[in-house]
């Protein structure tokens, strides 16, 4: 089970030599709470300028991983590394370069946004009033800067969290589900904001359970499930091959065997009642021919890419019997 994580894991020495420097890496990061393993030998790496999507269903271990990266909790084993500073060992040095929030950004409700930023923002070193005004401007809270945060809406608090993350101009910005609980307009605004950050060269680590969000905003992503990395790579390569089709037949079990024999077992995943097959256009014709030859009734062959990543994602994180092999193929592709 860990093979996938190990293979997708930490920056291989050779890969680290070229390309932008690694800003954040986790090395076999593991956390267990009593008997449950929340994060399981999780390794990944984020390079300067990446907008890195950290994608997974709720409960996959995303927030626990982030807590370890920022030193709020201590790993059972493994460590994180932020610009050559190990966490938890050199936590204070590492945190100098990080801005962000975990879960819901927390502030003092009885103080204004400006006062909160003055109080908390300067914990890493003095900041100027002009900078406070600037970040409030960036997140669009200038007009409400002097209202009490307790009176803020959820979306405004979320934006204040981003302002606080940016205040020290950190090398790495970590945002944990920044759009959760926002209305569509709020989501759009935050995503726009994240894209702008990326455009200015800030490295962003964005956790999300929404595939389309990661698709819209990120250039690289890791999909995690049950505490380990299932796939890591450029967002464009996370897609199933364009010619993927969903197949529905009278006997899915036998159909799966037939298709596996044709295109390889790794290319077939089960998504609810459908088989999702990654196949080139030519092989679809052959596939149908073989199914018919095997006397399996073909009910439907649907282009899968129209279904978007959600199905693919569910396929990856739910059918654990195939996700390991899937991860191998996907990461193999990513690192080439």
């Amino acid at each position: 089970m860990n093979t996938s994580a190990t293979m997708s894991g930490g920056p291989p020495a050779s890969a680290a030599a070229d390309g932008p420097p690694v800003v954040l890496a986790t090395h076999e990061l593991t956390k267990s709470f009593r008997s449950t393993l929340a994060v399981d030998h999780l390794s990944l790496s984020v390079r300067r300028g990446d907008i890195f999507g950290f994608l997974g269903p709720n409960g996959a271990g995303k927030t626990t991983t982030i807590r370890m990266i920022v030193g709020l909790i201590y790993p059972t084993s493994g460590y994180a590394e932020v610009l050559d500073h190990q966490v938890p060992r050199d936590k204070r040095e590492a945190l100098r370069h990080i801005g962000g929030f975990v879960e819901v950004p927390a502030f003092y409700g009885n103080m204004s946004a400006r006062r909160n930023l003055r109080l908390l923002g300067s914990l890493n070193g003095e900041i100027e009033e002009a900078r406070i005004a600037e970040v409030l401007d960036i997140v669009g809270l200038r007009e409400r800067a002097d209202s009490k945060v307790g009176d803020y809406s959820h979306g405004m608090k979320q934006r204040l969290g981003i302002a606080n993350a940016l205040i020290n101009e950190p090398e790495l910005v970590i945002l944990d589900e920044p759009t959760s609980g926002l209305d569509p307009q709020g989501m759009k605004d935050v995503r726009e904001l994240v894209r702008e950050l990326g455009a200015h060269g800030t490295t962003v680590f964005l956790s999300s359970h929404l595939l389309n969000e990661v698709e819209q905003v990120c250039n690289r992503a890791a999909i995690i499930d049950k505490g380990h990395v299932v796939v890591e790579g450029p967002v464009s390569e996370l897609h199933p091959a364009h010619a993927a089709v969903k197949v529905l037949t009278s006997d899915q079990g036998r159909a799966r065997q037939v298709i596996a024999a044709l295109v390889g077992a790794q290319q077939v995943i089960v998504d609810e009642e459908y088989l999702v097959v990654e196949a080139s256009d030519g092989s679809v014709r052959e596939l149908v021919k073989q199914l018919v030859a095997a006397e399996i009734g073909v009910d439907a062959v649907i282009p899968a890419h129209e279904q978007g990543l959600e199905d693919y994602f569910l396929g990856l994180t739910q059918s654990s019997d195939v996700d390991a092999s899937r991860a191998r193929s996907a990461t193999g592709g990513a690192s080439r």
Partner: protein
Amino acid sequence: MRLLHRELTKLFAQRRSYVGWAGLLAVPLLMTLAIYLSSRNHHPHDNGPGGLVTLASHNGLLMPVAAIVLLSSFLLPLLASMVGSYQLAGEAETGTIKTWLMHSISRGGVILSKWGGAVIYVAIGLALVAAGAFVAGGLAFGLHAPTLLSGQTVSVGQGLWLTLLSYLYVLAGVICVVSLALLFATFTNSSLTAAISALVVVIVMNILGAFSYFNFLKPYLFTSRVDAWQSLFSQPIAWSPVVKGIIVFAIYTAGLLLAAWYVFRRKDILV
């Protein structure tokens, strides 16, 4: 210092801080009023708990020490456990502790500044008590050279000096309660749980101290040491109980703080 400054900013911005201070300030005022009214109505025996309180009924200068006789048994420990626990567990309740800890600061520094903030809060409270008592007592009974428990009269300057010493001594005792509450706050994310736990311990210690059967424990209970400052108000001053009290307070505070740091240092912040 940077952290402590923030703690104070925070304390001064919280409404509950002022409620606590107002409660403390109310005690000397009400007390003075009660003593004043009963002395005017010629009820010479209705002078409250006696001792220093009785002496204060003739001299506003002794009102501050009379006030802490009343306060040190309950209201001060209560406020100390509230502020000590709230400083840490209250931040866990609002989640702000994680905002703090995501910065380049040490957890030891955080614990120390939370503790320092609570201590300063209590010190301000005591200062308010003293100020309120001086003003109210002075208005009601005037400020004269005080008569001590042993019957001698000393100068006003000497009286003020003894008052200051006894306040500092009581502060040192209350700091034990603050440290206790802070330690409990490292175990829980509920400030109420921590405050009540600390208060329960203080009350249990008080009960143990009240029974002669447990006399063998008494030297080790910080609560049994709190009243030792009253020996300052007899001539010649018996310094030994005061010095021993300070030593016990210091040991408790150091031990509790160290334990709080030890727990908090590696604590998983899951709020």
